[in-house]
């Protein structure tokens, strides 16, 4: 019988130079502090000896174009590549030194996809989508120099309206948790992104976060209050710039009723940064 041996969620631009340039010294210092915390969490994750690492994150119009935007997509196949793009945005460029390929946990990825179809969770499947900073920035900090466990990348459409609802994200997570429980593997699962930034995806409002909303969400996560989380309207997530919380809600569905513990929370102004761990062990 399989189980989730480690579960966490964290911001995914773990790039001091980016925040140093766009926010200033306090932004750089805050993300450096977060990176230290995520590094410690990674050692704890690897100590739990996961056979696979499920990563739930979003696409930043790097992989999927407006020609087809999957609400949820599972990466299948044997290997997954790091995104390579000439003159990429600086926090993707920061991935340049990382390995070009990572193993996929093919059996678990296939089960998530196939059993999803049977259960009414209609995932898109991709054999070719590469991974950008939303996946590899947290994974590389978590694993450091250690080998990266075979991955199961799952994309959630956080940014192209209409997005899947909070309720649906939790249901998808519930399905992933069921597949893991029915399988033979020890699985680590992370969700990435957030907290609030880019309110209403408006360039004119770039640079502000919503700490009151973030504190309210974190309190609900700490309380394991799935009911409150599933009621969150997309309109409010959009207005506060909390689109990437959808990734976290998939994780919530997988580990519920576990409660979250805050490992890091920082209000930067441009974005609020966080790392949370769920008490699954």
């Amino acid at each position, binding site marked *: 019988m399989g189980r989730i041996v480690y579960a966490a969620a964290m911001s995914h631009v773990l790039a001091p130079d980016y925040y140093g340039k766009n926010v200033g010294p306090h932004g750089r210092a805050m993300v450096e502090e977060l990176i230290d915390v995520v590094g410690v969490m990674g050692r704890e994750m690897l100590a739990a000896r996961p056979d696979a690492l499920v990563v739930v994150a979003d696409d930043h*119009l790097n992989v999927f174009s*407006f020609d087809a935007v999957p609400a949820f997509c599972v990466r299948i196949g044997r290997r997954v590549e790091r995104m390579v793009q000439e003159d990429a945005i600086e926090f993707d460029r920061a991935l340049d030194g990382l390995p070009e390929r990572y193993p996929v946990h093919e059996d678990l990825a296939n089960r998530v996809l196939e059993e999803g179809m049977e259960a009414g969770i209609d995932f898109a499947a991709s054999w070719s989508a590469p991974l950008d900073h939303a996946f590899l920035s947290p994974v590389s900090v978590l694993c450091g120099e250690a080998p990266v466990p075979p991955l199961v990348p799952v994309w959630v459409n956080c940014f192209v309206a209409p997005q899947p609802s909070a309720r649906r994200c939790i249901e998808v997570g519930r399905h992933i948790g069921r597949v893991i429980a029915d399988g033979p593997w020890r699985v680590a699962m992370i969700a990435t992104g957030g907290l609030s930034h880019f309110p209403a995806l408006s*360039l004119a409002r770039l640079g502000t976060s919503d700490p009151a909303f973030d504190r309210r969400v974190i309190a609900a996560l700490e309380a394991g209050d799935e009911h409150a989380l599933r009621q969150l309207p997309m309109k409010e997530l959009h207005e506060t710039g909390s689109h990437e919380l959808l990734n976290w809600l998939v994780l919530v569905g997988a580990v519920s009723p576990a409660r979250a513990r805050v490992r890091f929370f920082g209000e930067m102004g441009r974005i609020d940064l966080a790392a949370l761990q769920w008490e699954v062990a």
Partner: protein
Amino acid sequence: MSRYDVNVVLYRLKKDAAFRARFVNEPRAALERADLTDEERDAFVRWDVRRLNELGGSLHLLVSIPHLGAH
């Protein structure tokens, strides 16, 4: 508002270096075949990123186009 068409051009500017170079040199000519309204076309030609965002252009595309990104 042809949100799709604005984003098709933005995505191409991000991913297609030759198209981007042509756009930088001759924006109006580069967009000749794009299915845009006059207002959208003007915003592209002026490279008014806020206006393009208001017209439905994806924030994530607008901030990540090499050399033109609005970050």
